[in-house]
């Protein structure tokens, strides 16, 4: 009798867990379906090639031009530079707070960094407008500091906390025995950290980078405030418009036709993130296999 009851509880619990897992998966599928159904026909109408590779975006023209190449390139450009700079800094900071600093100091800094991760992006946008934009204008002697460069700086600051905390977790999870062994062999701590601990934490660090990429490519509000928002092919010191900001900018006054195209941009973003995720998961799995 009793075992039957336990069995019943187990199956109820399993059903609940299964249900919520299903909800998660279904939401992703529904989002995908929504994007394809709403954005697909509009993309087809513009023509996939003209849409993805068209260099001119002008929704107010008659007929309107819907080329989003500038947005795609801008998004990739800014994400690439953000990650390029944010990742090495994050790894060094993660090593410093988890391995090199006295425990108390590390704890304080860790708390501050996790606080940074929780600040709403619009605040970062404000800080960008107030401090970075004027600075960029002055330093490069531009007519306006609203540039790709400013948004990359804002993005770096925004992605740091995420990459730091995730990579720190994976670095600290590395078997302490490795450090003891290295120490007993007369190897200095800093050398052992870079040659043993970092490689051992590789898969976790890659997951951290993935999160950073996701944040950089998907960030909208903060970059919209500092990027200048002009649809043109990107350059570091020119105002640019990203995939995300392109959607927000025109959504409120879009015609029926433009609205469909904007959802099409969302679909492109969705597909990109899906591809990036898949690539990273492949590498993370590979890295995990080497260590295991």
């Amino acid at each position, binding site marked *: 009798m009793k075992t039957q009851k336990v069995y019943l509880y187990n199956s109820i619990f399993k059903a609940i867990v299964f249900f919520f897992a299903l909800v998660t998966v279904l939401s992703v599928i529904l989002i995908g379906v929504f994007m394809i159904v709403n954005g697909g026909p509009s993309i087809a109408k513009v023509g996939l090639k003209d849409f993805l590779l068209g260099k001119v975006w002008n929704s107010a023209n008659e007929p309107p031009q819907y080329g989003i190449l500038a947005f795609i390139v801008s998004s990739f450009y800014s994400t690439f530079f953000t990650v390029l700079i944010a990742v090495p800094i994050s790894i060094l900071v993660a090593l410093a707070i988890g391995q090199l600093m006295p425990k108390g100091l590390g704890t304080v800094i860790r708390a501050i960094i996790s606080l940074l991760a929780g600040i709403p992006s619009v605040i970062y946008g404000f800080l960008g407008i107030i401090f970075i934009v004027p600075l960029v204008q002055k330093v490069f002697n531009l007519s306006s500091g609203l540039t790709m460069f400013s948004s990359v700086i804002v993005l770096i600051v925004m992605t740091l906390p995420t990459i730091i905390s995730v990579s720190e977790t994976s670095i600290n999870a590395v*078997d302490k025995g*490795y450090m003891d*062994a290295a*120490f*007993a*062999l*007369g*190897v200095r701590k800093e050398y052992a950290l870079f040659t043993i601990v970092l490689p051992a934490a590789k898969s976790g660090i890659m997951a951290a980078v993935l999160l950073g990429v996701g944040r950089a490519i998907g960030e909208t509000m903060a970059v919209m405030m500092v990027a200048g928002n002009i649809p043109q092919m990107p350059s570091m010191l020119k105002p640019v418009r990203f995939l995300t900001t392109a959607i927000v900018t025109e959504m409120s006054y879009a015609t029926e036709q433009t609205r469909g195209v904007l959802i099409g941009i969302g679909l492109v973003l969705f597909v990109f993130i899906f591809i990036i995720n898949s690539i990273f998961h492949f590498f993370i799995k590979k890295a995990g296999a080497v260590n295991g």
Partner: protein
Amino acid sequence: MGIITTKDLNLYYGDKQAINSINMDIEKNRITALIGPSGCGKTTFLKTLNRMNDTIPNCKITGEVIFDGINIYDNKIDPMLVRKKMGMVFQKPNPFPMSIYDNIAYAPKYHGKKKRELDEIVEKSLKAAALWEEVKDRLKKSALSLSGGQQQRLCIARTIALNPEVILMDEATSALDPISTYKIEDLMGELKKTYTVVIVTHNMQQASRIADRTAFFLLGDLVEYDTTENIFVNPRNQKTLDYVSGHFG
């Protein structure tokens, strides 16, 4: 005088004294076993010999450890060089997550050996640790694919690769099965021809089987230190007799 001599060696964790005024002479090319119940200070003492306690916060050491005629706690001594000359093998096998070859070559490379010398060092070290025959065809495979006993012998080989004078083993067989343990005990007998071996063990049979000299620790004191035979057959101290005859521990 032996290869290592401790003089009035005390160690404190914060306010708590963990080992009390140890004076001990460790002989060259012998196996010296440190025995005693858990918490008696035997591992702590072992780690003072190659300054592994340096990494522990609030750990204070007074007294001297004379190794090759030099006090290793002298301010002018680089602890890294001490550790290079005194290898250590840990309780849990801890090969690095890299290939078998790289595990052995790692420290020699760090300490400045040339690339062309490494092949020979790897082979010699693995042979000395009685592991060569088992792994010679898969040197590029991950060290983590080895069994526990093989991993521990790899750790011994890794230590030998630096050509140390002393090898310290902290309960190096306690996580292993009897056959692997036997192989490592056998290996220790070989190692003492070239190196001085100091082991910590909670296995009294192991100490009596392989050690030339045995030191009995209790509550941070060195109670008795003598030839293994004397310790186990006719100890002078009542506490030693109680411990080796299994009355406590």
